[in-house]
């Protein structure tokens, strides 16, 4: 973000776009949605050791209306798929999706009738995190990537849609 300081130090000048992106990228609030064992790692990412609050994403919202980020943390059963899609539809724009772990990304070891073979068949995914399960820092890196996307005005960014 380009910020210039006026002589005297009373003002900072910046483009409104940049300020908005900075604010938006620093408060990516995830949806409270744990699907399987990856959710344990997701919870660990919120705890003191990894502390997702350092990136402004500690506020897991219990309502999709208040959430910006959907973390698909685990395998998606065929029965859960319409629910995931509905939650995604209920989230307000702009919104992002992280597909966390092998099962959410591809079905993982569950190559069977009951599991959706990749959550990208039902919702658009911004970042895939490999691992089974991914480490919490893997998830933090995914959040960082989404923050980068927002600051550069990428897909779903408030200004990309204008």
């Amino acid at each position, binding site marked *: 973000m380009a910020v210039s300081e006026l002589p005297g130090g009373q003002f900072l000048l910046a483009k409104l776009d940049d300020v908005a992106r900075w604010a938006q990228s620093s408060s990516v609030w995830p949806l409270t949605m744990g699907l399987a064992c990856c959710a344990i790692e997701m919870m660990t990412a919120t705890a003191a050791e990894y502390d997702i609050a350092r990136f402004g994403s500690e506020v897991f919202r219990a309502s999709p209306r208040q959430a910006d980020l959907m973390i698909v943390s685990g395998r998606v059963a065929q029965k859960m798929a319409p629910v995931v899609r509905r939650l995604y539809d209920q989230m307000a724009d702009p919104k992002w999706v992280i597909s966390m772990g092998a099962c959410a990304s591809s079905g993982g070891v569950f190559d069977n009738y009951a599991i959706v*073979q990749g959550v990208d068949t039902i919702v658009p995914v911004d970042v895939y995190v490999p691992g089974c399960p991914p480490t919490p820092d893997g998830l933090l890196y995914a959040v960082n990537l989404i923050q980068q996307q927002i600051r550069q005005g990428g897909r779903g960014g408030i200004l990309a849609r204008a």
Partner: protein
Amino acid sequence: MPSSQTPPAGATALDPTAVRPDIADARILRVTPAELRATLEGLKADGFTVMMDVGGVDYPGREPRFDVVYHLVKLAASAGTVAAVGTPERVRVLCGVPEADPAVPSIADLWPSANWAEREVFDLFGVRFDGHPDLRRIQLPADWEGHPLRKDYPLRGPARERAPRPNFALKSNVAAGTPASGRTAAALQKQIAAARGQSREDETK
């Protein structure tokens, strides 16, 4: 312990014994669907007040094809003596169900705990429980077709059944002469060696 069961017709490779020997902690009874309710009512009156679980088994090729299995427990408290505390008595009731008309009477009115268990067996095996108050699918979506725990249900579901599985370059595949989309183990090792800047031949020397 001698078995008191009437064997179903015909043992198969999947169910070679057909008659299960009674085991140490559980008596095993085999009944027909017609005898089922009377047997279970008798057991309940006899003190087997806990219905632990209702399960299903599929023996394709056997007649009757399915077994519905009831696990009953007589609690030590009702067994009478202090010495019996800690050794609950168990009974397993096997009920053969024919494929042509897969139906048994429901016992959800005798044990409320059997309600959801029967729905699960219905959902996954397609066995009907006549007289059940609310016989809907419980685990799969309501519009699901088929019963996945039947042995003839394709693992990946009917829709994906015909899609070929990816053929990985496993050693066993290579040994069996299976072409693995051009990526044999030897070819992969060559690639890895090339990436390391050395050839396999050098390593073997």
